């Protein structure tokens, strides 16, 4: 998925040429965390609910080093393992199973929900707008300092 946000490239250039690169990295990470949170909220809202285990398990994190970072959204396996601890027949990859479909015990195919992919596409522009907003606000704060 690619969405172009006006000003993002320029803002990232500003970050890359900032005198204090430690602060630039901090701003970059903070912006990515905020953008990822917007998408996570959308994905959480769209998650199918039976017992609510999947919805509760959806989490995010920012991975990578320096200026090359990525926001990752998905189920926190540790939380799923907690629910599987009492019942060994429960799978710990229910996010994948519901998103991409799976084979049922009777051999029939359970179709994919595709909710995560659809929500990710729908919330991508808002997520990127948030990234721009945070970078702008943080750069202004730095300029005043």
């Amino acid at each position, binding site marked *: 998925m690619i969405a172009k946000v006006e000003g993002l490239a320029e803002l990232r250039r500003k970050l890359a040429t900032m005198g204090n690169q430690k602060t630039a990295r901090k701003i970059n990470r903070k912006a990515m965390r905020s953008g990822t949170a917007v998408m996570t909220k959308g994905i959480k809202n769209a998650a199918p609910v039976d017992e609510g285990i999947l919805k509760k398990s959806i989490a995010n994190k920012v991975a990578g080093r320096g200026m090359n970072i990525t926001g990752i959204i998905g189920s926190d396996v540790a939380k799923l393992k907690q629910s599987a601890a009492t019942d060994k027949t429960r799978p710990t990859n229910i996010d994948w199973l519901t998103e*991409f*479909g*799976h*084979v049922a*015990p*009777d*051999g*029939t*195919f359970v*179709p*994919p*929900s*595709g*909710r995560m*992919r*659809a929500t990710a*596409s*729908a919330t991508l522009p808002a997520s990127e707008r948030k990234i721009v907003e945070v970078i702008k606000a943080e750069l202004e704060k730095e300029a005043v300092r």
Partner: protein
Amino acid sequence: MIDAAINTLLRNASELAEKVKPSVERVNVVAGLPKLVFSRLPGTDRRYTDDGANGPFQARYQVDIFAEKLLEAVEIARRITSPADDTVFGLDGYRGTVASTFIHRVYFTNEHWTVGDTEVDGKQQTIPRYIIELIVEYRELQPPQAP
């Protein structure tokens, strides 16, 4: 109508004919392999103007190929994702009219596979599965209006 068009295109490209099924049907994917199941994913984009829906519309599909061996599934996937030319009926970049639907373009966005064990009828079975995701841009052709 787009589902019928995709069904026809996948049947021709995969050369699996009757073994191509939409996921809205109950499809047994452990017997009579290879089998191909396609599912329409949520999020169809429709473009509107003051004159109404003028398209083109965009729909996403997930295609699941089940086979005895992963290599067999990969071979079927290659047939589907290859570019269309005179000798191969691939779908990459396909443009044409099928089942009253004008397809502007078909493009593939992602593909991956799994060879996981699944418990079927109380027995562990390994079912190789190849997944292709595609986007199709299309316009549904209107039937001629009565005067």
